[in-house]
């Protein structure tokens, strides 16, 4: 039944709408919302980097004030970051509501409307999670809050992609993507690895125990960090008495070590993907551009990760590491979306191929080839 509806819509969009689906201001607004979301991730990152998430103990109020009436003069110390985070978050919530409404009003693709409402629900859930993290004093919620933020950013970024002129006019027949099955596997696999890497990162950051391995590229002067009880006791004595850091655990040390290993797997995945894309689809400016940007981002991300360790987790560097991490995930996600839609279109799966107007599958199904 659902599939039937999709077919009807595809017919309409192809025969009547065509490139008319492109709404430049909707696209600009979606990209703007994604941009403000990135700023929000940055401010949220500062809150965690500086460990001031609980500087405002109440929610949704701020020290008993309505959050929009909280006086600027009281935004001192940690309150400044946490309260700013709430204000920017409210802005993103509002922008997302407008975006979802705008899509419902102008965009005739039903799956796009669904995406708009999912984004709205996600931003509401995200706000509530942020509030519960404060009220329930649970670091674990902070981890979920951080990961949902990344997912939401990718979702709004994808809406940005789906509303571009390029997407609305993209024709696989005119600009075929070569070897998209293999490319999809590589790009999607790497992107999933990046998301797992972000979860690891969030888990490390929300322990608030500082660095558990404080040298790089080596770990406590070795290739594999020591995790036995005796070494751990020695490390913790050092941390508490001389480094102003709380005790760490073998689990935390292992987590940070895995994060380092995963970083190099991701680097390999991204470089390999980009190489393959440039070899097989070097003339496709979007694919080539995205993959080159992806390589640049992942390289910057590794430098920032190393700098986070070398500066003993300086708040600005650690926050930049979070923001560039989001962008790396977004670049991988957009590439993967294009490749997934390409494969779906090749395989004649209209539910996915619908993402791309005039895709091969549609053209064949509709008998409009030529």
């Amino acid at each position, binding site marked *: 039944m659902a599939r039937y509806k999709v077919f009807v819509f595809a017919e309409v969009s192809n025969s009547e709408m065509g490139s008319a689906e492109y709404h430049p201001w909707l696209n600009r607004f979606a990209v703007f919302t994604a941009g403000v979301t990135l700023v929000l991730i940055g401010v949220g990152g500062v809150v965690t980097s500086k460990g001031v998430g*609980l*500087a405002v103990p*109440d929610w949704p109020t701020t*020290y*008993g004030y309505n959050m929009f009436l909280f006086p600027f003069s009281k935004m*001192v110390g*940690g309150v400044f970051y946490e309260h700013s985070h709430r204000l920017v978050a409210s802005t993103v919530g509002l922008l997302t509501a407008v975006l979802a409404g705008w899509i419902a009003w102008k965009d005739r693709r039903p799956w796009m409307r669904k995406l708009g409402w999912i984004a709205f629900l996600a931003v509401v859930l995200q706000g509530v999670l942020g509030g519960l993290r404060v009220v329930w004093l649970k670091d674990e919620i902070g981890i979920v809050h951080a990961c949902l933020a990344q997912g939401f950013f990718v979702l709004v970024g994808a809406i940005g992609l789906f509303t571009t002129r390029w997407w609305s006019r993209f024709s696989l027949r005119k600009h075929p993507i070569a070897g998209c099955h293999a490319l999809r596997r590589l790009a999607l696999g790497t992107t999933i690895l990046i998301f797992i890497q972000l979860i690891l990162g969030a888990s490390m950051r929300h322990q608030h125990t500082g660095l558990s391995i404080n040298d790089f590229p080596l770990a406590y002067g070795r290739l594999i960090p020591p995790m036995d009880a005796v070494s751990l006791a020695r490390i913790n004595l050092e941390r*508490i*008495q001389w480094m102003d850091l709380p005790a760490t655990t073998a689990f935390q040390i292992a987590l940070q070590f895995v994060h380092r290993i995963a970083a190099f797997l991701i680097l390999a995945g991204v470089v390999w993907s980009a190489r393959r894309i440039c070899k097989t689809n070097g003339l496709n400016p979007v694919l080539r551009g995205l993959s080159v940007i992806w390589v640049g981002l992942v390289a910057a991300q590794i430098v920032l990760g190393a700098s986070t360790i070398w500066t003993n987790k300086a708040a600005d560097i650690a926050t930049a590491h979070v923001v560039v991490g989001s962008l790396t995930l977004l670049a991988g996600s957009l590439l993967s979306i294009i490749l997934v839609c390409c494969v779906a279109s090749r395989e004649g799966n209209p539910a996915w191929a619908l993402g791309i107007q005039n895709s091969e599958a549609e053209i064949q199904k509709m008998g409009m080839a030529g």
Partner: protein
Amino acid sequence: MKKTGIWIATGALLVTSGMAFAQGSISGKAILQGAAPAEKAIKMDADPYCAKTHATGVTTKHYIVGPGGGLANVFVYVKDGLAGKTFPVPKEAKLLDQQNCLYVPYVMGIQVGQLLQIQNDDSTLHNVHCMAKNNPEFNLGQPVKGMKSEKVFTKPEVMVQFKCDVHPWMFAYVGVLDHPFYAVTKEDGSFTITGLPPGEYTLEAWHHKGGTLTQKIKVEAGEAKAPDFIFKPKT
């Protein structure tokens, strides 16, 4: 009439002195061996009010060392030897104050069930974030000068850390015990724990930077002298 009065007075004296003799006390000293590590300057510019109250600058005060190396702010308490005994909960409350953007006192003790009053004496806002592990964690906002909150701990816990997330330099440490036999060393490093029933005890001394030290001590009626607790900074 006069005679009766004298008799009563003598009787009272005997009873009180007898009570005093049935109980013991421990006194001793915490010592820092060697030079104290340098303290770090605290930057308070994030809150203009705090910066103004410390116009001449302020540093951490991890090591307050008196003459002869006496180390202040060491929490000394009876860790073992009181099992099975219960002690009345003091009626008077203990005060944890926030003055000039610092917790006062920095180290204190309290009994399970005893009222803890937490007060803001500053014209700025603080959040009182109790990082207890055995007791429930809590986080209170005190946006206005003179605000007072009251809390009670339900389980022993040494030490409970308090912090303020608005002012990341603000910390306090509270030792929660189910008995009244604890003390915090004074500026000269000395402490006295009074009113102890005679017995054998394990005494522990905790210092925020120096870690913990323990010793066994036998208390009889009268004053027992504990050997010095000697903390050693890394050389």
